[in-house]
């Protein structure tokens, strides 16, 4: 019985080497944090906190992942999210008439969400056009748009914070359905949709192809440029959804919100098995990595660790993950050579 389970685990591990270590890591972090916080970690308030903070980071990480699978990167996700959030906040604070009825406000909430998503899709399309059609390297194109989008947001807000949103909109970041924060449900739906898109749709297959070998993909009759354009539009849209959740949770929007999240999204993608050189990465690994990272974050919070120390720690963790991946690849190569000889 036990040996059977063991062999089954070994087969699974061999087939899923990119994420095989993650469940163990998850258990270890859970145990460590519970012990360090003397059980406070498992308290319901912390769990609710965890569930309400996770979605925005998860959505942004998905936005980063789709770009990374094509061997690109999207440095503009945070700037794009902030710009979309500011656009939505402007619709909600400037257009809604005084003393409007609840239904009218709901109408404006829908309008704001549509405007926000259109904005983020457009911002993503600019990235996709530059990368796919003008053939600018993704790093530099999105570095440029990151600067530009943040600049536009600064110019619109003049450096101020926009707040005071209608309570109807705030529900999206604060309400709970069956005890689960509503943004968690949004994230779950989006994650499943992206997972299906990547695994079950032709577009998903092209996405991985483009990341592995764009030239071969082009010669197989796939329109690589269109795939890239669609990818960065998807990335933009995901930032837009993250913007909705963040705007509703914080009740404010500004140009420099969440600038430290960029590092975390890269870290989550790489820990979750996404290869920055393209061709590999999946939603399940990302979600596992997201849970681990969020547990570390809220655990450090509970322990009262300085937030700057946390930033440095995330940076060190990113280097650690890169080293781990490097060692792992080395070992495979050595094993491969041994099998050959």
């Amino acid at each position: 019985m036990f040996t059977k389970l063991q062999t089954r685990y070994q087969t699974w591990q061999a087939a899923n080497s990119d994420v095989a270590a993650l469940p163990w890591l998850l258990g270890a972090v859970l145990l460590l944090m519970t012990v360090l916080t003397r059980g406070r970690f498992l308290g319901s308030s912390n769990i609710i906190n965890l569930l309400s903070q996770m979605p925005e980071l998860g959505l942004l990480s998905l936005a980063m992942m789709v770009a990374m699978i094509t061997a690109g990167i999207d440095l503009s996700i945070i700037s794009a999210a902030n710009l979309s959030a500011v656009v939505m906040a402007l619709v909600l604070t400037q257009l809604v008439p005084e003393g409007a009825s609840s239904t009218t406000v709901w109408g404006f909430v829908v309008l704001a969400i549509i405007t926000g998503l259109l904005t983020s899709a457009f911002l993503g399309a600019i990235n996709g056009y530059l990368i796919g059609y003008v053939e600018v390297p993704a790093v530099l194109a999105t570095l440029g748009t990151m600067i530009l989008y943040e600049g536009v947001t600064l110019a619109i807000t003049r450096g101020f914070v926009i707040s005071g949103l209608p309570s109807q909109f705030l529900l999206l970041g604060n309400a709970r359905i069956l005890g689960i924060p509503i943004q968690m449900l949004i994230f779950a739906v989006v994650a499943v949709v992206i997972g299906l898109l990547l695994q079950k749709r032709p577009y998903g297959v092209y996405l991985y192809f483009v990341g592995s070998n764009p030239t071969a993909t082009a010669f197989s009759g796939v329109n690589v440029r269109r795939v890239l354009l669609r990818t960065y539009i998807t990335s933009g849209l995901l930032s837009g959804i993250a913007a909705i959740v963040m705007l509703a949770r914080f009740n404010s929007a500004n140009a420099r919100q969440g600038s430290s999240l960029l590092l975390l999204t890269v870290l989550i993608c790489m820990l979750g098995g996404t290869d920055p050189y393209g061709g590999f990465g999946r939603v399940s690994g990302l979600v596992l990595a997201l849970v681990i990272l969020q547990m570390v974050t809220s655990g450090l919070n509970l322990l009262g660790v300085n937030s700057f120390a946390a930033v440095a720690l995330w940076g060190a963790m990113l280097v650690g993950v890169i080293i781990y991946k490097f060692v792992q690849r080395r070992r495979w190569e050595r094993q491969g050579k041994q099998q050959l000889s």
Partner: protein
Amino acid sequence: MPNSTNSPRGLTRLFRYNQTYLLIILVVLVAVVSLINPRFFSGRNAMQILRSASFTGILSIGFLFVLIAGGLDISFTATATVAQYLMALLLANNPEIPIVIAIILPMLIGTLLGSINALLIHGLNAPSIIIAIANLNIYYGLLQLFSGGQWIYSFPRWFNRLGRGYLFRFTDANGAPYGIAYITLMWLGVALVGFVILHYSKLGRRLYALGGKLEAARRAGLSIFRLRLFAYGFLGFCAGVAGLVQALDTQTVAPNALVGREFDVVAAVVLGGANIFGGTGTITGTLLGVALITVITNALTLLRIPAYWHQVFIGAVVLASISITSLRAKLAKRNERTIDVH
């Protein structure tokens, strides 16, 4: 790019260089701004602009080296901050420390941190941007943690004199003296060193070779690691000098003062014609790029355009410059393909 088979002479040849266009734009721009506001066109203002551009200018030389070598690094402002902060701490606690040590320290720290970047990028075969993002956060995080966000103002007298000092005394119409700031001279010194390395040393030529085609450079027997170590180390060195210069200029050191200043550097270098794919780029182009960015920023202020628009402009410059370079590369590739067929 110059073509050896039928090289045109004189003026026509000049128009093959990026720098010529940049110089023309710069001259036209200075003329237009001077017409709008005559106060702009004065020796005093020119020296002031050169002084305020020094920080960006020094970093641009280092960033150019990394771009030429085919790399990318945006952690240099964090490096500069760490370097200047440690120097400031040393000076605040031991004002009697020899000047040489205080000046060399930030350069050493910068070089060290830059070399760490190179070590990680090369040793782990990781994308340079990801290493840069990781290190940027490690440096800033640790600095904020240990400094507690504390600003440092107390510097010895020589530090103040070096920051305010200038060479060649001129007097303007009102009889007030001005000159070339020592800070500006440091920038020009770094630029000169960069120029000599890139044009007259084996090392410089090899950097171009590495950025032009990595595999070719490897097969030619060049040590990729040593070249990368040099390029990133030099950027770190420049970051150290820039940190020193910024501290001299403002006489204050804050752990978060330089956040976001890397964008101007990226804009200046890509505007100066450095190829984002590696292998090309000149010191003169970079100097002109820095001058253009600074003059335009200055002009925007003179035209009373709110400062919030500055970053929109910088982003637009970066995107326009890299799009043009990419389009050119794309067209060149297309031409190459037709040659292959025939």
